[in-house]
């Protein structure tokens, strides 16, 4: 089954029509989605600004990561769940949409980068803020901002 066939099959399921038929589901799910985005941005902003050496230089990076990384994972789980509801409700609008797939690629990159480069920060080590680490912090922030841009463009593509 190709993507178009899959979208049509998904569109025809009872869950999909239930999401569309209850007018309040999509706005409420989207609002929860944006709230979770705010949690990701808040967590990322403080963590990355600390790593970039902009705020709280006397606080240990390990402590900052311990406070905010768990919130990041929780928010990403909520984003995945609410995102799935939106896909099931309107499969064609999302699955055959270029900004949607760019967004997914960026999200996977962001999650893998967080696992590979931010999770290790939870272990207490003596870290000096090197130049590359500071640059990486700005790249991580830009990545999450790019995800938001792609997300909003889903509504305008097709």
């Amino acid at each position, binding site marked *: 089954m190709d993507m178009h066939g899959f979208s049509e099959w998904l569109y025809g399921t009872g869950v999909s029509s239930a999401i569309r038929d209850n007018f309040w589901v999509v706005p409420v799910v*989207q609002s929860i989605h*944006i*709230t979770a985005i705010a949690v990701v*941005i808040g967590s990322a902003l*403080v963590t990355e600004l600390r790593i970039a050496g902009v705020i709280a230089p006397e606080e240990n990076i390990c*402590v900052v990561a311990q406070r905010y990384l768990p919130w990041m994972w929780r928010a990403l789980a909520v984003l995945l769940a609410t995102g799935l509801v939106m896909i099931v409700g309107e499969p064609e609008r999302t699955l055959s949409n270029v900004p949607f797939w760019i967004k997914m690629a960026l999200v996977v990159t962001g999650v893998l980068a967080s696992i590979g480069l931010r999770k290790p920060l939870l272990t207490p080590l003596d870290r000096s803020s090197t130049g590359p680490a500071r640059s990486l912090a700005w790249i991580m922030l830009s990545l999450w901002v790019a995800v938001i841009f792609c997300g*909003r463009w889903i509504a305008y593509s097709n």
Partner: protein
Amino acid sequence: MNLDSTLDYLANTPLAMAISQGAAAFPMLECIHVVAIAAVVGTITIVDLRLLGYRSHRRGVRQLIEDILPYTWGAFALALTAGSLLFISNAPKYAHNAQFQLKLLVIVAAAINMGIFHLTVYRRVEEWDDRLPPPAAARVAGATSLALWLTVIFLGRWVGFTL
């Protein structure tokens, strides 16, 4: 010049016409608006949760607020600028939308809540800051702020479905 003619005038300015008729201007402003709102609510939530007793990266409330508030204000200025440009692109419709009106009222309520916090319990922050759990008044301010900003997000999203 009454309100409605002012709104019509706004929507017919060259800037407003460029936003409403260009292919990319409106979506791009929305992107900036969402990023800015995420930064406003994300950073305020960290302070609100600290006021409710959750730990942040700073032990004390005063240091946390001094770390974070400049970014909250910067993001709010950006959200307001992008939001105003979105507004003028279709001023009469936004102005007459109940969800939009309510959203502005809730933002004013959040501002009043913040003002009360800063003029009362935050004035005596040295008495609790990093030594004692936040006093009841600080907890109330934190919970109120959290509830109001979540309402702002819900109402903002709702505007897009009712306009």
